């Protein structure tokens, strides 16, 4: 493995390219870049790379796996001096999901967040209409606030009767 020579923003672009291939372990169709988890990337004159990640949920069990995947992917690409840094603020929001990420989610069968986070919230508010990713019907119902991962809720389509995950607006 030859360490990669450093030369400014070309190198940073290369790093971003590598990160675009690092997928979320639970939702392999989208990358950590699509998710908006990668806050920034820098490389100094000595070739020391810093990748700033913002965790999605405080208890997300994928956080450590993602951190390792990022280091590994960069190592394979020739960046041997990598530091992954957790940046807590500003807090991650589903608004940072790229539009590419949202369509990939839909393709995969997961309904993307239906609202922007800035929508007003009240304590016992009603739910937005979520369309079935399979048959596109708006006749869907929430089965549970919490699904297979902390970021998803469980829905069921009353039209085609299939269950599906909804990526929560957070």
């Amino acid at each position, binding site marked *: 493995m030859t360490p990669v020579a450093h030369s400014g923003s070309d190198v940073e672009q290369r790093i971003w390219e590598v990160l675009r291939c690092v997928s979320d372990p639970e939702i392999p169709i989208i990358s950590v870049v699509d998710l908006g988890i990668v806050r920034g990337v820098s490389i100094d004159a000595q070739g020391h790379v810093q990748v700033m990640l913002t965790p999605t949920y*405080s208890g997300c069990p994928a956080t450590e796996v993602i951190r390792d995947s990022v280091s590994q992917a960069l190592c394979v690409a020739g960046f041997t001096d990598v530091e992954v840094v957790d940046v807590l603020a500003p807090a991650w929001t589903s608004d940072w999901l790229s539009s590419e990420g949202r369509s990939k989610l839909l393709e995969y069968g997961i309904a993307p967040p239906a609202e922007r986070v800035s929508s007003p919230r009240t304590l016992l508010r009603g739910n937005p209409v979520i369309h079935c990713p399979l048959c596109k019907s708006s006749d869907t119902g929430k089965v*549970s606030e919490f699904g297979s991962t*902390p970021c998803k809720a469980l829905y069921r389509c009353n039209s085609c009767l299939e269950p599906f995950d909804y990526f929560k607006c957070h």
Partner: protein
Amino acid sequence: MNRHVSALALSDDSSSPLFHYVLRLADINLILGQRLGETIGHAPALEEELGFANIALDLMGQARLLLTYAGEIEGKGRDEDDLAFLRDQGSYLNVVLAEQPNGDFAHTIVRQVLIDAWQRATYEQLASCSDKRLADIAAKALKETEYHLRYSSNWLVRLGDGTTESHERAQRALDTLWMYTGELFESDDLDRQMASAGVAPDLARIRERWDSDVNSVLQAATLARPADVVFSWHGKRGDHSEHLGRILVEMQYMQRTYPGAKW
């Protein structure tokens, strides 16, 4: 005996007030998360088990962030695992409400509503406090807590405004757990010290927000708000009920049997 040990735990400890304050926030997450973990395999429906598991996961995540910060403040080389698994009972600073047993589903839900509402009000204030790290953690935790409160309060409404049996169980749970809520708003020296440092929120303000949220849920749930009780147990000063010891035995067993073991 318990009182004597706990008084030593704090007064003998030369650690900074901020260390203790952060532990109070961390421990309520750690202990409540552990209690919710106990529901796995026993919840009435799979979706609710998933619900409790996911809430516990969020709480554990928040506990990790807070315990890691506490260890850094203390500066004695203790990390999140050392603090979670190797402290003795008198050194845990969670309010005693968090360590109360799960009981039936209504009991678990009522305890959750009471704590979720307190955490929501608290994190809301902490998100703009003078300690940047704490503010960042709180801003993140606030978003998750809103989901917890939505989940637990929706369930309390269904139970209270449900069948005769679900209403009775919900009211019984409320009547039993209410006396532990006083501790959530009792200001002590540490609270006052942290408040004047611009870190801790004014507990009277937390109380107002909590009252408003809890009252609206209880009203929608057709449940009667119990009378406030003067109650002098102080988990936040290391004075715990008989329950914490049993929780810790289970939680700490592996680390104490195989010290330093890692996955």
